[in-house]
């Protein structure tokens, strides 16, 4: 009993690849599984290729649910992965590639031909049953090619998915930073407005000249300018995020957090980052796969240069005038003119090409990951310097100025001038923190594929202030 079952299982196991090889079938989810796995492993996000209205409704619901709370970098990424129609379009491409692969791996239909010919009285009926043996023989090859192509499409879609995630993440930080800057600039404007009002009242009370009042008004007009610029930067940063998340209509009224996340206590120390990248980057993996594949092709070309030219048909010719002719007709294409050398040479060249490409990919990946890591470390240092030195120094100056104001050594206008001088450092610290998070996103991306380094989107430019503030 046991033995026979084992035998049966063994037989099934042996037969399975044969069966599968004989007849590949559609995966049922358009080949999404590895993409979904990548999303889960690298991003902790879920993916759904929307093919039906129900799918779209499900996505809408999930997005609506995510939008009820202020966005986080992760929720923004999740929304983009579900809702970005460009990505959805690529998912469909994946489906197309899978269908083609499946198609290519199916047995060709046998052909049947019948001919009835007259030559005088002679009737010739020619029946032919042909089976594209070439196709059959080439089937494993075609299947390999198509599945490699499918795998390449999968990799490219996975890469597209990951870079959409990275871009969304960066756009999220840029939008939050722009929001923060805009809100700070609104405060500055309100304070400058107060200063201008105070100057007006001083002039009205007869304590100040019109000249002094006009000078004080300068801060206000500058602050209005800065607030307007910051607002414009805020809108474009937010719209970029909106586009990446594929939102429209009432969805685009999403809420962002008031502040960027704090700087982590310590930067990641990654001495082994290049090695890690060599194993984790999809483009490196893809290039390696391509080299292996072309290597196989090269071997295959050598082996199959004769097979490639073989055609096999079954013939049964019958004639009323002559005895039935039966038998096989085997035609062999003798490799007289095409020894396959050219094909081998091409395959070798293709192999070398893919080998060089793989090397280039690896070299670039190493460089990109180094650059991303360096960018990340220096962005950390800059943000930390802003946090630990620039901003506290500005705060100390401000505190000391308040003490001087308390002692009536300086006036409220000196306090305002000081606040004005601080604008650049506050703004700089917001941007430094944003750049850190962007660099972090780039680093994460560099570990899975080609990052688009830098480029956090537009930022508010601060108009130079007369109060000794550093020009921005």
């Amino acid at each position, binding site marked *: 009993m046991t033995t026979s079952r084992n035998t049966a299982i063994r037989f099934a196991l042996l037969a399975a690849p044969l069966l599968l090889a004989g007849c590949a079938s559609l995966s049922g989810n358009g080949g999404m599984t590895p993409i979904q796995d990548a999303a889960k492993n690298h991003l902790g996000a879920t993916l759904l290729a929307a093919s039906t209205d129900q799918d779209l409704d499900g996505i809408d619901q999930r997005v609506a649910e995510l939008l009820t709370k202020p966005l986080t970098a992760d929720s923004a990424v999740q929304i983009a992965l579900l809702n970005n129609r460009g990505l959805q379009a690529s998912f469909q491409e994946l489906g197309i590639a899978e269908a083609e692969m499946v198609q290519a791996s199916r047995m060709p239909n046998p052909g049947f031909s019948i001919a009835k010919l007259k030559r005088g009285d002679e009737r010739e009926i020619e029946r032919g049953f042909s089976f594209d043996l070439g196709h059959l023989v080439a089937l494993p090859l075609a299947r390999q090619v198509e599945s490699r192509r499918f795998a390449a499409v999968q990799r490219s879609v996975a890469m597209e998915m990951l870079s959409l995630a990275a871009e969304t993440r960066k756009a999220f930080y840029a939008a939050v930073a722009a929001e923060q800057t805009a809100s700070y600039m609104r405060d500055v404007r309100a304070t400058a407005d107060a200063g201008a009002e105070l100057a007006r009242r001083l002039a009205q009370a007869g304590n100040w000249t019109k000249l002094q009042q006009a000078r004080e008004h300068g801060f206000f007009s500058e602050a209005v300018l800065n607030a307007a610029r910051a607002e414009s930067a805020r809108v474009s940063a937010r719209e970029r995020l909106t586009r990446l998340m594929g939102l429209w209509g009432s969805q685009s009224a999403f809420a962002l957090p008031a502040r960027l996340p704090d700087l982590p206590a310590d930067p990641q120390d990654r001495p082994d980052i290049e090695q890690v990248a060599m194993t984790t980057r999809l483009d490196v993996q893809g290039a390696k796969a391509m080299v292996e594949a072309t290597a196989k092709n090269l071997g295959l070309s050598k082996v199959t240069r004769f097979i490639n030219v073989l055609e096999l048909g079954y013939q049964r010719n019958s004639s009323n005038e002559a005895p039935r002719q039966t038998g096989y007709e085997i035609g062999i294409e003798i490799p007289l003119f095409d020894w396959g050398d050219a094909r081998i040479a091409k395959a070798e060249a293709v192999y070398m090409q893919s080998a060089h490409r793989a090397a280039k990919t690896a070299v670039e990946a190493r460089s990109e990951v180094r650059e991303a890591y360096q960018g990340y470390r220096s962005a950390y240092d800059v943000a930390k310097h802003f946090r630990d030195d620039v901003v506290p120094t500005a705060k100390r100056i401000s*505190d000391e100025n308040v003490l001087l104001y*308390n002692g009536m050594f*300086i006036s409220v206008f000196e306090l305002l001038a000081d606040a004005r001088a601080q604008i650049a450092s506050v703004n700089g610290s917001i941007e430094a923190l944003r750049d850190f998070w962007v660099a972090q996103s780039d680093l994460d991306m560099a570990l899975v594929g080609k990052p688009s380094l830098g480029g956090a989107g537009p930022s508010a430019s601060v108009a130079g202030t007369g109060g000794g503030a550093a020009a921005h």
Partner: protein
Amino acid sequence: MFSRRNFFRGAGALTAAVSASAVSRVAMAALPEPVLQTKPDTMAPLVPNTGRPYNPVVTLNGWTLPWRMNQGVKEFHLVAEPVVRELAPGMKAHLWGYNGQSPGPTIEVVEGDRVRIFVTNRLPEHTSIHWHGQRLPNGMDGVSGLTQKSIQPGQTYVYEFVARRPGTFMYHPHADEMTQMAMGMMGFWVTHPKVKNPQIDEVDRDFCFLLNAFDIDPGAATPKIMTMTDFNLWCWNSRVFPGIDTLNVRKNDKVRIRIGNLTMTNHPIHVHGHEFTVTGTDGGPTPKAGRWPEVTTDIAVGQMRQIEFLADEEGDWAFHCHKSHHTMNAMGHNVPTMIGVDHRQVAKQITKLVPDYMVMGERGMADMGEMTMPLPDNTLPMMTGEGPFGGVEMGGMFSILKVRKDQKRGDYSDPGWYQHPKGEVAFPWTGALPEPARFAAEGGQSMPRLQRKDATAEVNVRKPSGHSGH
């Protein structure tokens, strides 16, 4: 009372900065021991126990330098050195001075005394001493380069002359004097008359002090020596109110106050409740026939004034410079006047960027005296002092003449606040206040302007209306 510390020990602590210019112990052994003072308090008069007798002075927040008699010569030892001087509790200044303090100790001698003064330089640069107002040999006048070589760091020079005329004098450097006087190097000198002088009256109490000024940024401790006019700390003997001691006297004491001006501006010194006469200058006693009664005498730069009066009115009498900025401590001189500018609402917006901002100055500067807000380190409030009836709102050159009938002779201690007899303190009127008749018939313009501009500037007079909600 005096801390007669060993020179090397005491000076070492205070002058570590110039220890490179150490003075040889052997060389010092031959000199009179320099006496250092560590406290800025007013010391009791130093009654002479050697040399000719005299009636000693009291140096406000200062002291008199002890001497030794050496074969009939009065020997003093001044040590020029960096010092830390408390200008008032809560603020210490890094100054240069003599024997531990700025100003240096008062030198008291008697007319005809032969005086030998050892001057040791423990400053980081050369110095010299000029004896302001003295008749002396030209080579003893202390003008470096002109009458002597300057005293290099570590060197000790000797000045020797006879104190020829009685009077009120001072000493100060005459080498890089802009720096050295801005840093507080100066001291008082009194030559008492040897015999009864018809121009010089006997007094019960004899006070002296120098007027000096510093420019020290709020939060800093070292004077800005380049400042020429915009000083922010107006001092008597390097002290500011409330750090200046009161002048405590017995009722009907004859009081003499000697004042020297080493600032760069004049000071109208004013006493309440009494008239005085100027009885002497750095040129000597003023002729009695030329004296006239005053309550304020202006003391110009580089001058000395000796005023005398009979303290016959009991009470706590203000005694101060009459330039009102000189009775304030450090303040901003470019702060706009906020009087009449309501900015309570505006302030709320300002606190968005300056969270600790508070409204001040709308009613005047007295807010400053009332509010106790944190100031920069080592900084005194602009106006301060709590009297028996409330805030005195003073700083700088301000003190109090305290006249008491039960003050003991020779007792210089503070008797506390004056207890006013019943009915002798101003009081609030609670009766009706009839509207006064106003004078309407104004005179015309003597020279009217020909092309008058059409509109006169609109000026709003804001009168305080009841309680303004503070």
